[in-house]
Protein backbone atom coordinates (compact mmCIF):
# COMPACT_ATOMS: atom_id res chain seq x y z
CA UNK A 1 0.00 0.00 0.00
CA UNK A 2 1.41 3.35 -1.05
CA UNK A 3 1.05 6.62 0.83
CA UNK A 4 1.01 10.11 -0.57
CA UNK A 5 2.37 13.25 1.04
CA UNK A 6 2.27 16.68 -0.56
CA UNK A 7 3.43 20.26 -0.44
CA UNK A 8 1.95 23.24 -2.23
CA UNK A 9 3.28 26.66 -3.11
CA UNK A 10 1.66 29.39 -5.13
CA UNK A 11 3.38 32.25 -6.92
CA UNK A 12 2.48 34.52 -9.84
CA UNK A 13 -0.73 32.64 -10.58
CA UNK A 14 1.00 29.27 -10.77
CA UNK A 15 0.58 26.50 -8.21
CA UNK A 16 3.62 24.26 -7.73
CA UNK A 17 2.88 20.79 -6.40
CA UNK A 18 5.44 18.47 -4.85
CA UNK A 19 4.30 14.92 -4.12
CA UNK A 20 6.13 12.30 -2.11
CA UNK A 21 5.05 8.72 -2.65
CA UNK A 22 6.28 5.91 -0.37
CA UNK A 23 5.40 2.23 -0.25
CA UNK A 24 6.16 -0.73 2.03
CA UNK A 25 6.21 -3.19 -0.83
CA UNK A 26 7.09 -2.56 -4.45
CA UNK A 27 3.92 -1.10 -5.94
CA UNK A 28 2.75 0.31 -9.23
CA UNK A 29 0.93 3.57 -8.55
CA UNK A 30 -1.17 5.97 -10.50
CA UNK A 31 -1.54 9.50 -9.17
CA UNK A 32 -4.30 11.77 -10.37
CA UNK A 33 -4.05 15.51 -9.98
CA UNK A 34 -7.17 17.23 -8.66
CA UNK A 35 -5.75 20.50 -9.98
CA UNK A 36 -6.39 20.92 -13.67
CA UNK A 37 -4.97 21.55 -16.15
CA UNK A 38 -1.66 19.97 -15.23
CA UNK A 39 1.59 21.38 -16.60
CA UNK A 40 3.83 18.33 -16.36
CA UNK A 41 7.62 18.47 -16.45
CA UNK A 42 8.79 18.14 -20.04
CA UNK A 43 11.68 16.43 -21.78
CA UNK A 44 12.44 17.65 -25.30
CA UNK A 45 9.12 19.44 -25.33
CA UNK A 46 6.97 16.40 -24.54
CA UNK A 47 5.66 15.42 -21.08
CA UNK A 48 8.18 13.38 -19.06
CA UNK A 49 7.75 9.60 -19.09
CA UNK A 50 4.81 8.46 -16.96
CA UNK A 51 2.61 11.52 -17.52
CA UNK A 52 -0.65 11.16 -19.41
CA UNK A 53 -3.01 14.13 -19.15
CA UNK A 54 -3.74 14.67 -15.46
CA UNK A 55 -2.31 11.38 -14.26
CA UNK A 56 1.16 10.05 -13.60
CA UNK A 57 2.19 6.41 -13.39
CA UNK A 58 5.30 5.03 -11.79
CA UNK A 59 6.66 2.17 -9.73
CA UNK A 60 7.66 2.74 -6.11
CA UNK A 61 10.21 0.26 -4.78
CA UNK A 62 9.77 -1.21 -1.28
CA UNK A 63 11.00 1.20 1.37
CA UNK A 64 11.90 3.74 -1.30
CA UNK A 65 10.26 7.03 -2.18
CA UNK A 66 9.39 8.80 -5.40
CA UNK A 67 9.16 12.57 -5.69
CA UNK A 68 6.86 13.97 -8.34
CA UNK A 69 6.64 17.67 -9.16
CA UNK A 70 4.34 19.55 -11.50
CA UNK A 71 2.67 22.92 -11.93
CA UNK A 72 -0.86 24.07 -12.59
CA UNK A 73 -2.50 27.42 -13.27
CA UNK A 74 -5.37 26.35 -10.96
CA UNK A 75 -5.78 27.76 -7.45
CA UNK A 76 -4.21 25.56 -4.72
CA UNK A 77 -6.57 22.85 -3.54
CA UNK A 78 -6.13 20.30 -0.77
CA UNK A 79 -5.31 17.57 -1.52
CA UNK A 80 -3.75 18.51 -4.86
CA UNK A 81 -3.64 14.87 -5.96
CA UNK A 82 -4.81 11.44 -4.90
CA UNK A 83 -3.69 7.88 -5.46
CA UNK A 84 -5.97 6.20 -7.96
CA UNK A 85 -7.56 3.06 -6.65
CA UNK A 86 -7.56 1.03 -9.83
CA UNK A 87 -4.19 -0.47 -10.78
CA UNK A 88 -2.29 1.23 -13.63
CA UNK A 89 -2.59 -0.27 -17.06
CA UNK A 90 0.19 -2.70 -17.92
CA UNK A 91 3.04 -1.03 -19.72
CA UNK A 92 2.71 -1.01 -23.49
CA UNK A 93 5.78 -2.50 -25.13
CA UNK A 94 5.38 -0.75 -28.48
CA UNK A 95 7.24 2.49 -29.20
CA UNK A 96 4.98 5.51 -28.85
CA UNK A 97 5.64 8.87 -30.53
CA UNK A 98 6.19 10.71 -27.25
CA UNK A 99 8.83 8.24 -26.12
CA UNK A 100 10.46 8.64 -29.50
CA UNK A 101 10.60 12.44 -29.21
CA UNK A 102 12.03 12.13 -25.69
CA UNK A 103 14.69 9.72 -26.89
CA UNK A 104 15.65 11.35 -30.20
CA UNK A 105 15.20 14.98 -29.27
CA UNK A 106 12.83 17.71 -30.30
CA UNK A 107 13.42 18.95 -33.85
CA UNK A 108 11.34 22.13 -33.77
CA UNK A 109 13.31 25.29 -34.50
CA UNK A 110 14.34 27.06 -31.28
CA UNK A 111 12.29 30.03 -30.11
CA UNK A 112 15.17 32.46 -30.76
CA UNK A 113 15.16 31.57 -34.43
CA UNK A 114 11.55 32.57 -35.01
CA UNK A 115 11.48 36.17 -36.26
CA UNK A 116 9.82 38.57 -33.83
CA UNK A 117 6.26 39.30 -34.77
CA UNK A 118 5.91 36.23 -36.97
CA UNK A 119 2.93 34.24 -35.83
CA UNK A 120 1.96 30.72 -36.73
CA UNK A 121 -1.30 31.88 -38.26
CA UNK A 122 -1.86 32.38 -41.96
CA UNK A 123 -0.07 35.63 -42.87
CA UNK A 124 -3.01 36.58 -45.10
CA UNK A 125 -5.18 36.78 -42.00
CA UNK A 126 -3.02 39.48 -40.49
CA UNK A 127 -3.16 41.71 -43.56
CA UNK A 128 -4.52 45.11 -42.54
CA UNK A 129 -8.03 45.92 -43.61
CA UNK A 130 -9.58 49.33 -43.95
CA UNK A 131 -11.63 48.72 -40.83
CA UNK A 132 -8.67 48.21 -38.55
CA UNK A 133 -5.64 49.98 -39.92
CA UNK A 134 -3.99 50.68 -36.57
CA UNK A 135 -1.52 48.59 -34.59
CA UNK A 136 -1.24 45.60 -36.89
CA UNK A 137 0.72 42.93 -35.12
CA UNK A 138 3.91 42.08 -36.95
CA UNK A 139 4.01 45.31 -38.98
CA UNK A 140 7.38 47.07 -38.97
CA UNK A 141 7.49 50.62 -37.55
CA UNK A 142 7.95 51.89 -41.10
CA UNK A 143 4.84 50.05 -42.34
CA UNK A 144 2.84 51.43 -39.42
CA UNK A 145 4.11 54.93 -40.16
CA UNK A 146 3.15 54.68 -43.84
CA UNK A 147 -0.35 53.61 -42.83
CA UNK A 148 -0.62 56.51 -40.39
CA UNK A 149 0.49 58.97 -43.09
CA UNK A 150 -2.13 57.58 -45.46
CA UNK A 151 -4.79 58.12 -42.79
CA UNK A 152 -3.63 61.68 -42.12
CA UNK A 153 -3.54 62.42 -45.85
CA UNK A 154 -7.11 61.19 -46.25
CA UNK A 155 -8.20 63.56 -43.48
CA UNK A 156 -6.25 66.45 -45.00
CA UNK A 157 -7.66 65.83 -48.47
CA UNK A 158 -11.17 65.84 -47.07
CA UNK A 159 -10.44 69.16 -45.35
CA UNK A 160 -8.91 70.63 -48.52
CA UNK A 161 -11.87 69.58 -50.65
CA UNK A 162 -14.65 71.39 -48.75
CA UNK A 163 -16.85 73.62 -50.89
CA UNK A 164 -19.38 75.04 -48.45
CA UNK A 165 -19.35 76.28 -44.84
CA UNK A 166 -21.50 73.28 -43.83
CA UNK A 167 -19.05 70.82 -45.34
CA UNK A 168 -16.18 72.68 -43.69
CA UNK A 169 -17.63 72.46 -40.20
CA UNK A 170 -18.54 68.80 -40.72
CA UNK A 171 -15.01 68.00 -41.92
CA UNK A 172 -13.43 69.88 -39.00
CA UNK A 173 -15.71 68.10 -36.54
CA UNK A 174 -14.78 64.71 -38.11
CA UNK A 175 -11.10 65.37 -37.44
CA UNK A 176 -11.83 66.46 -33.86
CA UNK A 177 -12.06 70.27 -33.85
CA UNK A 178 -9.92 73.15 -35.10
CA UNK A 179 -7.08 72.35 -32.64
CA UNK A 180 -6.87 68.86 -34.12
CA UNK A 181 -6.73 70.40 -37.60
CA UNK A 182 -3.73 72.52 -36.55
CA UNK A 183 -2.06 69.46 -35.06
CA UNK A 184 -2.72 67.59 -38.27
CA UNK A 185 -1.06 70.36 -40.24
CA UNK A 186 2.05 70.26 -38.03
CA UNK A 187 2.12 66.46 -38.24
CA UNK A 188 1.90 66.58 -42.03
CA UNK A 189 4.84 68.98 -42.16
CA UNK A 190 6.85 66.50 -40.07
CA UNK A 191 5.69 63.68 -42.36
CA UNK A 192 6.84 65.63 -45.41
CA UNK A 193 10.27 66.12 -43.86
CA UNK A 194 10.63 62.46 -42.97
CA UNK A 195 9.48 61.40 -46.42
CA UNK A 196 12.12 63.69 -47.97
CA UNK A 197 14.80 62.05 -45.83
CA UNK A 198 13.54 58.61 -46.87
CA UNK A 199 13.59 59.59 -50.57
CA UNK A 200 17.14 60.84 -50.19
CA UNK A 201 18.17 57.56 -48.56
CA UNK A 202 16.24 55.65 -51.20
CA UNK A 203 18.15 57.48 -53.96
CA UNK A 204 21.53 56.81 -52.30
CA UNK A 205 20.73 53.11 -51.89
CA UNK A 206 19.61 52.95 -55.52
CA UNK A 207 22.93 54.42 -56.66
CA UNK A 208 24.90 52.00 -54.52
CA UNK A 209 22.82 49.05 -55.70
CA UNK A 210 23.45 50.00 -59.30
CA UNK A 211 27.19 50.36 -58.67
CA UNK A 212 27.86 47.11 -56.81
CA UNK A 213 28.66 43.73 -58.29
CA UNK A 214 29.96 40.75 -56.30
CA UNK A 215 32.83 39.03 -58.11
CA UNK A 216 31.46 35.57 -57.31
CA UNK A 217 33.73 33.77 -59.73
CA UNK A 218 36.85 35.35 -58.24
CA UNK A 219 35.70 34.75 -54.67
CA UNK A 220 34.98 31.11 -55.46
CA UNK A 221 38.51 30.63 -56.69
CA UNK A 222 40.01 32.37 -53.63
CA UNK A 223 37.80 30.96 -50.87
Amino acid at each position, binding site marked *: MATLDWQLSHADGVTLVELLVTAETTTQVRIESTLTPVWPPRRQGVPAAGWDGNSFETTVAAGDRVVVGYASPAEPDRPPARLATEPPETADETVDPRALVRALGE*ANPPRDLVPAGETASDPAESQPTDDEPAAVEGATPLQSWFRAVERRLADAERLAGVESPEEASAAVAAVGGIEAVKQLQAQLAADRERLDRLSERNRRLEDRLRGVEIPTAVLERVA
Partner: protein
Amino acid sequence: MILTVTAGKGGVGKSTVAYNLAAELDAVVVDADLGMADLPESRGPDLHDVLAGRAAPVEAVREDGPVDLLPCGRSLAGARAADATALVETVRRVADQYGRVVVDSPAGMRSDAGVPLLVGDACLLVTEPARAAVADALRTRELARVVETPLARVVLNRVDPDRLDEPARAERLATVLGAPVVAVPDSTALARAQQTGQPVRAVAPTATATEQFGRLGNAVATVLGD
Protein backbone atom coordinates in the same frame (compact mmCIF):
# COMPACT_ATOMS: atom_id res chain seq x y z
CA MET B 1 -1.38 1.64 -46.47
CA ILE B 2 1.21 4.09 -45.19
CA LEU B 3 4.65 4.19 -46.76
CA THR B 4 7.35 6.46 -45.33
CA VAL B 5 10.06 7.72 -47.67
CA THR B 6 13.17 8.55 -45.73
CA ALA B 7 16.91 9.10 -46.22
CA GLY B 8 20.06 9.32 -44.16
CA LYS B 9 20.97 12.74 -45.50
CA GLY B 10 19.20 15.58 -47.26
CA GLY B 11 19.53 16.35 -50.95
CA VAL B 12 19.41 12.78 -52.25
CA GLY B 13 16.07 13.31 -54.00
CA LYS B 14 13.76 11.99 -51.31
CA SER B 15 10.91 14.37 -52.10
CA THR B 16 11.16 13.58 -55.82
CA VAL B 17 10.92 9.86 -55.08
CA ALA B 18 7.98 10.40 -52.68
CA TYR B 19 6.08 12.50 -55.21
CA ASN B 20 6.59 10.14 -58.13
CA LEU B 21 5.85 7.07 -56.09
CA ALA B 22 2.62 8.65 -54.84
CA ALA B 23 1.69 9.25 -58.49
CA GLU B 24 2.31 5.56 -59.29
CA LEU B 25 0.30 4.37 -56.29
CA ASP B 26 -2.45 7.00 -56.63
CA ALA B 27 -1.67 7.95 -53.06
CA VAL B 28 -1.76 11.17 -51.06
CA VAL B 29 1.72 12.49 -50.37
CA VAL B 30 2.17 14.08 -46.96
CA ASP B 31 5.04 16.58 -46.87
CA ALA B 32 6.26 15.93 -43.33
CA ASP B 33 9.52 17.86 -43.66
CA LEU B 34 8.32 20.37 -41.07
CA GLY B 35 11.37 22.61 -41.10
CA MET B 36 12.39 22.45 -44.76
CA ALA B 37 9.46 21.50 -46.94
CA ASP B 38 10.24 20.80 -50.60
CA LEU B 39 7.02 19.81 -52.26
CA PRO B 40 4.82 22.40 -53.97
CA GLU B 41 3.03 24.70 -51.57
CA SER B 42 -0.35 26.32 -51.97
CA ARG B 43 -2.78 28.42 -50.01
CA GLY B 44 -5.12 27.04 -47.38
CA PRO B 45 -4.50 24.98 -44.25
CA ASP B 46 -1.26 22.99 -44.21
CA LEU B 47 0.44 20.39 -42.04
CA HIS B 48 1.65 23.03 -39.57
CA ASP B 49 -1.98 24.04 -39.01
CA VAL B 50 -3.03 20.41 -38.58
CA LEU B 51 -0.22 19.64 -36.11
CA ALA B 52 -1.07 22.76 -34.11
CA GLY B 53 -4.73 21.70 -33.92
CA ARG B 54 -6.02 24.49 -36.20
CA ALA B 55 -7.25 22.29 -39.06
CA ALA B 56 -8.49 18.74 -39.58
CA PRO B 57 -6.09 16.39 -41.41
CA VAL B 58 -8.44 15.64 -44.30
CA GLU B 59 -9.39 19.26 -44.97
CA ALA B 60 -5.72 20.11 -45.52
CA VAL B 61 -5.36 17.61 -48.40
CA ARG B 62 -5.26 19.33 -51.83
CA GLU B 63 -6.82 17.41 -54.67
CA ASP B 64 -6.31 20.02 -57.38
CA GLY B 65 -2.75 19.05 -58.41
CA PRO B 66 -1.47 16.08 -60.44
CA VAL B 67 -0.90 14.26 -57.12
CA ASP B 68 -3.05 14.64 -53.99
CA LEU B 69 -0.92 16.48 -51.47
CA LEU B 70 -1.01 17.47 -47.83
CA PRO B 71 1.45 20.39 -48.02
CA CYS B 72 3.67 21.61 -45.24
CA GLY B 73 3.90 25.21 -44.05
CA ARG B 74 7.08 27.18 -44.61
CA SER B 75 7.24 29.50 -41.61
CA LEU B 76 9.60 28.92 -38.69
CA ALA B 77 6.83 29.94 -36.30
CA GLY B 78 4.61 27.24 -37.79
CA ALA B 79 7.37 24.64 -37.49
CA ARG B 80 7.91 25.64 -33.88
CA ALA B 81 4.22 25.40 -32.99
CA ALA B 82 3.77 22.00 -34.63
CA ASP B 83 3.41 19.02 -32.30
CA ALA B 84 5.50 16.25 -33.90
CA THR B 85 3.70 13.51 -31.99
CA ALA B 86 0.38 14.51 -33.61
CA LEU B 87 1.75 13.40 -36.99
CA VAL B 88 0.90 9.77 -36.21
CA GLU B 89 -2.82 10.44 -35.77
CA THR B 90 -2.84 12.88 -38.73
CA VAL B 91 -1.37 10.40 -41.20
CA ARG B 92 -3.68 7.62 -39.99
CA ARG B 93 -6.72 9.84 -40.51
CA VAL B 94 -5.63 10.64 -44.06
CA ALA B 95 -5.02 6.93 -44.72
CA ASP B 96 -8.51 6.10 -43.39
CA GLN B 97 -10.02 8.52 -45.87
CA TYR B 98 -7.78 8.07 -48.93
CA GLY B 99 -6.41 4.55 -48.52
CA ARG B 100 -2.83 5.05 -49.65
CA VAL B 101 -0.44 7.57 -48.13
CA VAL B 102 3.20 8.30 -48.90
CA VAL B 103 4.95 10.31 -46.17
CA ASP B 104 7.88 12.47 -47.28
CA SER B 105 9.99 12.40 -44.12
CA PRO B 106 12.88 14.69 -43.18
CA ALA B 107 16.33 13.13 -43.28
CA GLY B 108 18.39 12.61 -40.17
CA MET B 109 18.15 11.01 -36.76
CA ARG B 110 16.00 13.42 -34.75
CA SER B 111 12.41 12.82 -33.75
CA ASP B 112 11.14 14.64 -36.85
CA ALA B 113 12.58 11.72 -38.84
CA GLY B 114 11.68 9.10 -36.22
CA VAL B 115 7.96 9.85 -35.93
CA PRO B 116 7.23 9.54 -39.69
CA LEU B 117 9.09 6.20 -39.63
CA LEU B 118 7.00 5.09 -36.68
CA VAL B 119 3.70 5.74 -38.47
CA GLY B 120 4.71 3.87 -41.65
CA ASP B 121 3.59 0.31 -42.36
CA ALA B 122 6.85 0.10 -44.27
CA CYS B 123 9.55 2.47 -45.37
CA LEU B 124 11.65 3.28 -48.38
CA LEU B 125 15.24 4.39 -47.95
CA VAL B 126 16.57 6.77 -50.60
CA THR B 127 20.29 7.06 -51.09
CA GLU B 128 22.83 8.10 -53.69
CA PRO B 129 25.82 6.15 -54.98
CA ALA B 130 28.22 8.41 -53.01
CA ARG B 131 29.94 6.71 -50.07
CA ALA B 132 28.83 9.35 -47.51
CA ALA B 133 25.21 8.97 -48.49
CA VAL B 134 25.38 5.20 -48.00
CA ALA B 135 26.95 5.58 -44.52
CA ASP B 136 24.10 7.87 -43.46
CA ALA B 137 21.57 5.48 -44.96
CA LEU B 138 22.89 2.78 -42.62
CA ARG B 139 22.09 4.91 -39.57
CA THR B 140 18.57 5.59 -40.77
CA ARG B 141 18.22 1.84 -41.43
CA GLU B 142 18.97 1.29 -37.73
CA LEU B 143 16.37 3.88 -36.72
CA ALA B 144 13.77 2.04 -38.80
CA ARG B 145 14.72 -1.19 -36.99
CA VAL B 146 14.28 0.45 -33.58
CA VAL B 147 10.77 1.65 -34.39
CA GLU B 148 10.05 -1.72 -36.02
CA THR B 149 9.12 -0.43 -39.46
CA PRO B 150 10.13 -2.89 -42.19
CA LEU B 151 12.26 -1.62 -45.08
CA ALA B 152 10.37 -2.35 -48.31
CA ARG B 153 12.96 -1.18 -50.82
CA VAL B 154 16.13 0.84 -51.10
CA VAL B 155 16.08 3.46 -53.84
CA LEU B 156 19.50 4.17 -55.31
CA ASN B 157 18.84 7.57 -56.81
CA ARG B 158 20.69 9.58 -59.47
CA VAL B 159 22.58 6.62 -60.86
CA ASP B 160 24.70 7.36 -63.93
CA PRO B 161 22.39 6.15 -66.77
CA ASP B 162 25.31 4.27 -68.36
CA ARG B 163 25.84 2.27 -65.18
CA LEU B 164 22.19 1.42 -64.51
CA ASP B 165 22.69 -2.16 -65.66
CA GLU B 166 25.64 -2.90 -63.40
CA PRO B 167 24.16 -5.10 -60.69
CA ALA B 168 27.27 -5.47 -58.48
CA ARG B 169 26.85 -2.20 -56.62
CA ALA B 170 23.11 -2.66 -56.12
CA GLU B 171 23.67 -6.17 -54.79
CA ARG B 172 26.28 -4.94 -52.32
CA LEU B 173 23.91 -2.24 -51.10
CA ALA B 174 21.04 -4.71 -50.80
CA THR B 175 23.19 -6.94 -48.60
CA VAL B 176 24.30 -4.10 -46.37
CA LEU B 177 20.87 -2.52 -45.92
CA GLY B 178 18.84 -5.71 -46.02
CA ALA B 179 16.33 -4.93 -48.77
CA PRO B 180 16.18 -5.13 -52.57
CA VAL B 181 17.49 -2.10 -54.43
CA VAL B 182 15.70 -0.20 -57.20
CA ALA B 183 17.96 2.16 -59.15
CA VAL B 184 16.61 5.44 -60.54
CA PRO B 185 18.77 7.08 -63.20
CA ASP B 186 19.96 10.66 -63.12
CA SER B 187 17.42 12.04 -65.55
CA THR B 188 16.76 15.46 -67.05
CA ALA B 189 13.14 14.46 -67.70
CA LEU B 190 12.73 13.75 -63.98
CA ALA B 191 14.32 17.06 -62.96
CA ARG B 192 12.18 18.93 -65.47
CA ALA B 193 9.01 17.21 -64.23
CA GLN B 194 9.81 18.02 -60.59
CA GLN B 195 10.43 21.67 -61.44
CA THR B 196 6.97 21.97 -62.95
CA GLY B 197 5.32 20.02 -60.13
CA GLN B 198 4.51 17.02 -62.33
CA PRO B 199 5.27 13.34 -61.89
CA VAL B 200 7.77 12.16 -64.50
CA ARG B 201 5.18 9.80 -66.03
CA ALA B 202 3.11 12.83 -67.09
CA VAL B 203 6.08 14.44 -68.82
CA ALA B 204 8.04 11.49 -70.19
CA PRO B 205 5.96 8.28 -70.09
CA THR B 206 8.62 6.18 -71.81
CA ALA B 207 11.67 7.41 -69.87
CA THR B 208 13.74 4.90 -67.92
CA ALA B 209 13.04 6.85 -64.73
CA THR B 210 9.29 6.42 -65.33
CA GLU B 211 9.77 2.67 -65.83
CA GLN B 212 11.73 2.41 -62.60
CA PHE B 213 9.09 4.27 -60.60
CA GLY B 214 6.50 1.91 -62.08
CA ARG B 215 8.58 -1.05 -60.88
CA LEU B 216 9.01 0.54 -57.47
CA GLY B 217 5.27 1.16 -57.14
CA ASN B 218 4.45 -2.45 -57.99
CA ALA B 219 7.08 -3.75 -55.57
CA VAL B 220 5.81 -1.60 -52.71
CA ALA B 221 2.18 -2.53 -53.34
CA THR B 222 3.17 -6.21 -53.32
CA VAL B 223 5.21 -5.93 -50.11
CA LEU B 224 2.34 -4.19 -48.34
CA GLY B 225 -0.25 -6.60 -49.77
CA ASP B 226 -2.31 -3.73 -51.08
